[in-house]
């Protein structure tokens, strides 16, 4: 078959290297287990061009002011209008096939992509994560106590972003962070989203192919763990920082290349929980409110994210009356799930067989579990009838939550561990009681119940400040012999 015939059958995820679109030397990827199979340029053929060997080339980004960066990103944001942008339209169509979510959720994510690039958003990100003055020049801080004058500046770096594919916004966010930091980024796309980052990069080429920001973004797909490729690419003379999102496999592959001069910023895969105090049962309307919030926390984005609740601890009490009211809350939550707007939640794309087998088996253990829904793979609420989470808690997915009754809120603190990211809390002031201890045990983010999938990019993430770490922090130390005792005079 000729190359054009292959192309006709399968979509192509082009490669972008610093403003140049590459669409030849195609090889096939994906296609296993019903996945979309797609073609992409063979990264091995472009290995010498993918990294930016000479870091001095970053200097052209330093001819831009921060305002220039904001202006350019704003133009790109305006161009990211899916009603007119063909790159986005194509990417969205293809993402229907690759994304773990469903078309209405993909549509909503794509409609929102441009908003991340708007001036207010970019300034807020930059100011809160770095401080714009540190991006703009050397900032003289208070003299240090030994009399030394200190200037600090935040510089860009040569970075590799291994992005996750469960939310298109991750691609947009990575591109914006790269622009703010005046860095050079190579984005390695995942097979569950090979198209979004590419569509943004192609849009930037349309907006201004010669713009330094366009020319410091590359996007490529190769199979993660391709050691022949990665061994050559992941070297300090090519890359200084690797930002790896989720997916233990991606992080595990990367760890073997970490060495002096090559830093790993690992946004580890995480899970989230919710904790609900007894106030949820104060009234019928409080229960309805909690049910809707809870449905949003585990049903939003169809539970594909690290932010989504999976196990939910509820201070319902564990006696018969307590379990009864938890069952009621479970039913209300299930009912609320069906009412979530299609832009954030729908019947899942494909319910996992293994998970279904686990859920179905519980239907025969009525003494210990009540399973509400799930008959049609639409998602389910499993209400534990004793204070114990299901043994497959780590498999909960596709809008499936496990409500666990507790007597005392202390029992919920046991639920946080090194894998915990978000904790949805109700009522609000419960955070005061449990927040500190949960943080020590591993929780990284507390949200008002119902807001797990909401949030801001202008905040720490996963317990670290990744944007600060993506940059290089350089000091200029000015010491005058009359002020700072010189080493040669130390006794």
């Amino acid at each position, binding site marked *: 078959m000729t190359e054009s015939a292959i192309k006709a059958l399968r979509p192509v995820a082009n490669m972008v290297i610093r403003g140049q679109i590459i669409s030849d030397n195609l090889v096939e990827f994906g296609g296993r287990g019903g996945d979309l199979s797609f073609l992409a340029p063979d990264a091995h053929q472009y290995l010498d061009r993918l990294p930016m060997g000479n870091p001095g080339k970053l200097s052209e980004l330093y001819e831009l002011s921060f305002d220039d960066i904001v202006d350019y990103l704003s133009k790109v944001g305006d161009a990211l209008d899916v009603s007119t942008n063909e790159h986005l339209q194509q990417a969205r169509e293809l993402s229907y096939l690759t994304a773990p979510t469903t078309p209405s959720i993909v549509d909503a994510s794509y409609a929102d992509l441009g908003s991340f690039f708007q001036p207010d958003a970019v300034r807020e990100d930059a100011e809160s994560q770095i401080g714009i003055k540190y991006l703009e020049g050397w900032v003289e801080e208070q003299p240090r106590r030994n009399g030394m004058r200190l200037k600090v500046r935040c510089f860009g770096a040569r970075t590799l972003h291994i992005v996750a594919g469960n939310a298109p916004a991750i691609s947009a966010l990575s591109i914006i962070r790269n622009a703010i930091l005046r860095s050079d980024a190579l984005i390695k796309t995942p097979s569950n989203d090979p198209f979004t980052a590419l569509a943004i990069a192609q849009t930037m080429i349309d907006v201004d192919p010669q713009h330094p920001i366009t020319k410091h973004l590359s996007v490529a797909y190769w199979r993660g763990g391709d050691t022949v490729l990665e061994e050559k690419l992941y070297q300090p003379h090519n890359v200084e920082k690797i930002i790896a999102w989720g997916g233990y496999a991606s992080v595990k592959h990367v760890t073997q290349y970490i060495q002096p001069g090559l830093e790993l910023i690992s946004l580890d895969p995480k899970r989230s929980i919710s904790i609900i105090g007894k106030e949820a049962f104060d009234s019928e309307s409080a229960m309805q409110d909690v049910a809707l919030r809870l449905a949003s926390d585990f049903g939003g984005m169809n539970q594909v994210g690290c932010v989504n609740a999976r196990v939910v601890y509820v201070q319902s009490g564990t006696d018969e009356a307590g379990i009864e009211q938890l069952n009621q809350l479970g039913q209300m939550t299930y009912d609320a799930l069906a009412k979530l707007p299609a832009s954030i939640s729908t019947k899942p794309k494909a319910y996992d067989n293994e998970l279904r087998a686990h859920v179905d088996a519980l239907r025969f253990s009525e003494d210990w579990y009540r399973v509400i829904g799930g008959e049609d793979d639409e998602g389910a609420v499993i209400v534990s009838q004793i204070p114990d989470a299901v043994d497959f808690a780590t498999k909960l997915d596709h809008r499936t939550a496990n409500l666990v009754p507790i007597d005392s809120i202390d029992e919920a603190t046991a639920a946080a561990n090194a894998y915990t990211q978000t904790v949805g809390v109700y009522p609000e002031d419960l955070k005061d009681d449990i927040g500190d201890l949960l943080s020590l*045990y591993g929780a990284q983010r507390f949200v008002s119940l119902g807001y797990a999938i909401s949030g801001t990019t202008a905040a720490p993430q996963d317990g670290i400040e990744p944007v600060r770490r993506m940059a290089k922090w350089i000091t200029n130390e000015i010491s005058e012999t009359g002020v700072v005792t010189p080493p040669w005079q130390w006794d």
Partner: protein
Amino acid sequence: MSSTSLQITADNLQQEAIRFCSDTDAYFGSSDENLHGMPRDRLAALQLAALKYRFEDLKDRIPMLQQLASRQNIASLETLEDVVPILFEHTMYKSYPPMLLEKNRFADINKFISRLTTYDLSTIDVSECQSIDEWIEVMDRKSELEICHSSGTSGTMSFLPTSKKEWDKFTRGTRTTVRSRLADPDDNEFYCIYPYYRDGASSHLRINNYCIKHILGDESRFYSAYPGWMSSDVLYLAAKVRAAKANGELDRVNINPALMQRLREFEELQQNMPAHLDTFFEHVMEELRGKRVYFGGTWNLLHKLAEQGLKMGEEAMFAPDSVIISGGGAKGVTPPENWQEDVCRFFGIERILMGYGMSEVQQMHYQCEQGRYHFAPGAIPFLLDPDTSEPLPRSGTVTGRAAFFDLTAETRWGGFITGDELTINWETPCACGRQSYFIEGEIERYSEKQGGDDKISCAATENAHKEAMDFLTHFE
């Protein structure tokens, strides 16, 4: 033909089917050749009749089956495919709260297991049991079962309520396979070297007693590296500690200090295993050199044994008609390429008899000379659509998720859906001459196929979690 004679024929078929599934080994005259010699049509009729009999006999006696059948609106079976909606998933054997095991609530565990077997276990007093080992000891003594369990990687263990009678039947079948490989079936003295525990409630250890009883004939012919009982509590605890370590919450896990001490001892023992095996070997070699041995176990145990022997410079240690049976085995670990050659070289045999099987289906499907796994007639194979679990056609060459109905199970439900992907050629008989259906090509685990495709998510899915755990800690 009158309708009366048709009736008689059906009755005859049912009587024959009952004989067939009640003791498959006896039905085929303890002959491996007969076992695979029945024409396909005749076997299919017999299997269908036996399936109907099993369902009729068990549907009101196994509560879990009763409930599932009623949920699926199945009152009787007419065709083989009718059974598919009521096959059990592996999850059925572990759908109890983890807390029951953690808090030694064995009366509740018995209540759970009673729903999976025809026996009522609620009458057995387990109120004094303070550990899994104590509970198993009581259950072995007071029930008709020898329950076996999985290694318990996720906080619970699967409990498979296999009866002593079923273990007997299974091992008599193995004996037939083993003896069929001898020139003179009456000259059938075997010794067994087992580089692990003598006893335990994991399925690979449960079989040892029966191997001694039916294949070796005498305890003195069984040489285990560790003569005692592999503690189920230690296995359970090891998995729990491993999970707690990976989650960064070890200090918060409540562990009985006495058990923790046993876990330490076990870990020490694992560490000292190579040295211990050296000593064990020296002793065993002296006694068993040149003798005919039997071994049945996972590739890793077998390979460990062979590596140890080869390291000591031993080759062709045993009689060339020794019988070595192995199969898939250690989960998630890929065997080294040369493991079979190592084993053959050490034992001095031509080939390993490879079997495909699982604890939930007590039938071994052995590989023929053509390298194909042939289905034992006591189990009906099915292929299901991996997405919908609908049965796939029993014609042509078909690939799907394997399921089986174990017709020999008489106190528990024999229907089981595996996590394996197989290909079956339903048309062409095998060149080896056996009539039975067989597996074409490799057996793959669906769980290992997923997640291998570079899908990256920020959510810690089971796969990511498991991989991380496997990477951080190695055990057993």
